[in-house]
């Protein structure tokens, strides 16, 4: 079965996904404005963006084929281990990406 070529299936699927995009992103905006969230919730959820970014980045660097991949030949891991301290020192996104990609490419080619 290939879902991609079934136009009706894809149209309904994408339509539903669009609605889900709006509903999840606006979920709490749609509550009446009188409803107040407890302040403790507010403080806690301010950590959500940082934790979400970590949970998106970490599997990309530290897993392969749905398995943890922490090994000497994980070139991406080495690239990150070198580039992040350089970034902490120099504060430049360009330097971060440049150094990381340079380390990765070097390890890949040798």
């Amino acid at each position: 079965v290939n879902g991609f070529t079934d136009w009706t299936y894809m149209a309904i699927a994408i339509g539903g996904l669009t609605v889900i995009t709006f509903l999840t992103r606006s979920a709490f905006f749609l509550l009446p404005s009188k409803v107040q969230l407890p302040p403790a919730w507010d403080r806690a959820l301010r950590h959500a963006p940082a934790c979400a970014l970590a949970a998106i980045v970490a599997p990309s660097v530290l897993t392969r084929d749905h398995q943890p991949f922490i090994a000497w030949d994980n070139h991406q891991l080495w690239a990150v281990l070198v580039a992040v301290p350089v970034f902490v020192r120099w504060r430049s996104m360009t330097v971060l990406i440049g150094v990381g990609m340079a380390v990765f490419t070097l390890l890949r080619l040798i």
Partner: protein
Amino acid sequence: MSLLFPTVDRASLRAGVRAMGPITVAIGVWGIVTGVAIVNAGMPEVTALVFSFTVFAGAAQLATLPLLAVGAPLPVVWVTAMLVNTRFVFFSATARRYFAHLPVAQRLVAGYLNGDLPFAMFLRHHGDDEAHGTPQQYGYFFGLTGVNWAVWHVASVVGILLGGLAPAQWGLDLAASLALLGVLVPMAERLPPLAGVVVAAVLSVLLVDVPMRLGLLVAIVAGVAVAVVAEVGSSRRAVAGGAS
């Protein structure tokens, strides 16, 4: 005034656009990687363009891709997208005090535009404000999210059209990860968020094989919980230190 946007302060709008400067690299690379992945999974280009423009959620698009490829039951596809998007529900709870009193159409637009990176930037700048819903905040928010939206879509289209031209071994996905780290690292330089970030990272790796990207959700919830505990602990110590 317009139907879809609240009144914004123009200087703040420009400040938001400028603040996105270096981060557009992250969004651009991430968008290209997502576009390439979608086409390489076998989705026809026209469908891929519609998919990208309407769904506008990279992680959810990548998570539902293998399901759509095999024609998985629609409820499974939708529940997967909802779970991957749960972090936006958390974001909307935090952002609510800035937007709750606006007309529904404006709330929906603000929610639709609210992405991981611009929201992190917004909180860094306006997270501690006393007043909520000012034209300055709206200006900054729509500057950030507008750039995010535009760059993301241009990049996805480039990725979709380029398809397999950039070989996987070049490590474009690493460039995207590095760029995300460039936003994450400055947020994690105090102990409470750092503790949460470490826990979220470890759990997301250990739970990577859990179906429907549920591991992502568990990792975020656990990370937030640990950050809160660390925050309570550090403020207690601060109080105790002050009293002695």
